[in-house]
């Protein structure tokens, strides 16, 4: 998927479009955050095998993918992280890691950081709010200790999970990020899945919140233009209307061939089970492209996916697009989350056993 605010990639050398493989190698985490969409937690021992992952990302480089984005769980708790980032670096990837920033001390982290191009540190607000959301007193202080290590050694940024009233702290967040010499502030709306459903189930964005976040983002982006890049994963309906190719609109359907796969799906997800999915984490399993343990060649999985599922993907995107255009209340939207929700409605899990989706 293209960047939601339609900006060019700021993380790769000029001229390279980022085509990202987002890897969730484990749901093991040192924290139990209230807003975690993957329900990551301490004590989850299961993790993806390095060999199987390396095999797939090696093949994915040949298909055009050029960025590895490690997520989780907490990636620094993944046993093979150093091996994996060293391998992906040697395969020509730009490596990014999203972390809570609490495990950056010590020689292991130091060795890992040698192979990482960008670190995104999650932040939930000022100290009290951060510790509350992380369910861990002292989390903010520890995160800042990690940031101190990054500040002078690596390109890094912050990532903030937007809540409905986040507009109240966005200017503080931007100022904090600039003071801490971060190069990026990524704003991603809360996704109502995983633990977030249990702890924050009542928190729903209304359009007024979204307008305020949208306006604040552009205002701050203008003000801090020379200091930091602020990315917002929300779109105005005008952005979508003006870019029909973004949603594979009827007038500009993509070429259905395997060679153009990474151009169509600029983000590929490998979840904690090893399933390879398009769009985003949490997408309906109906759209599973394959599994890293299957032994199949990635090219073969992609070919089969394009043949069997691409038509349904176009239907899914078109239905989401129509939904946004027809509902006048939906002006500011989280495109990815809308597609994911619709993927479960139109193509539920049980659909795997049947042939016809819920159209």
């Amino acid at each position, binding site marked *: 998927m293209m960047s939601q605010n339609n900006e060019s990639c700021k993380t790769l050398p000029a001229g390279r479009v980022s085509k990202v493989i987002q890897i969730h190698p484990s749901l093991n985490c040192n924290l139990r955050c209230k807003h975690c969409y993957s329900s990551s937690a301490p004590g989850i021992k299961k993790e993806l095998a390095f060999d199987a992952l390396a095999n797939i990302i090696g093949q994915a480089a040949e298909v055009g993918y050029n960025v590895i984005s490690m997520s989780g769980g907490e990636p620094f708790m993944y046993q093979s992280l150093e091996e994996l980032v060293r391998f992906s670096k040697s395969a020509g990837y730009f490596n990014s890691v999203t972390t809570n920033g609490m495990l950056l001390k010590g020689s292991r982290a130091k060795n890992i950081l040698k192979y990482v191009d960008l670190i995104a540190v999650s932040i939930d607000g000022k100290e009290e709010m951060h510790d509350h959301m992380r369910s861990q007193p002292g989390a903010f202080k520890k995160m800042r200790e990690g940031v101190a290590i990054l500040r002078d050694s690596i390109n890094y940024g912050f990532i903030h999970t937007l809540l409905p009233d986040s507009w109240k702290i966005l200017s503080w967040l931007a100022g904090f990020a600039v003071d801490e010499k971060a190069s990026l502030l990524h704003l991603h709306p809360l996704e109502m899945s995983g633990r977030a459903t249990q702890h924050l189930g009542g928190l729903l964005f209304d359009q007024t919140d979204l307008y*305020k976040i949208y306006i604040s983002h552009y205002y*701050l982006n203008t003000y801090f233009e020379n200091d930091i890049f602020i990315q917002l994963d929300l779109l105005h309906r005008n952005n979508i209307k003006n870019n029909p190719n973004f949603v594979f609109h009827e007038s500009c359907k993509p070429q259905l061939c395997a060679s153009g796969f990474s151009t169509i799906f600029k983000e590929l997800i490998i979840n904690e089970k090893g399933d390879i999915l398009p769009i985003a984490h949490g997408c309906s399993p109906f759209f599973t492209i394959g599994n890293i343990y299957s032994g199949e060649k990635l090219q073969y999985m992609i070919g089969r996916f394009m043949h069997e599922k691409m038509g349904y993907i176009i239907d899914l995107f078109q239905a989401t697009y129509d939904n946004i255009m027809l509902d006048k209340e939906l002006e500011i939207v989280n495109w990815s989350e809308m597609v994911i929700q619709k993927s479960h409605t139109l193509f539920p899990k049980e659909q795997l056993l049947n042939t016809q989706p819920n159209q």
Partner: protein
Amino acid sequence: MEKTTFAEVEKQLMAHLSAANLSKEHLSHVSGSISKTYAAGLRIVDWWIYGIPAFERIVVQGQLPIEAAGTFQELIANKMFKEIRIFRKGIPVPHFFQVDLTIEKITEQMPKI
């Protein structure tokens, strides 16, 4: 127009967005104007917000390359912009336009034709 100082950013934004008399329609209008401005290819370089406490009027200053001058038609046709001021800029040869756009809800004040 003076460049906004850092100290004013948080205060201004909070004061305006927290205003009790800020309607959903007005926020929708401002958001729509911003998206149109970016869609037109303007690089926004500064904002000025007017009104107490809610923003009744916003002036955004943008830059548009000379070769993108065709965009003006789109901006002029857009009723969301009450006033558009255009200046040729660049030394020694003008190479971009400075565009000051005033966003103000005037749609309902306009006579129906």
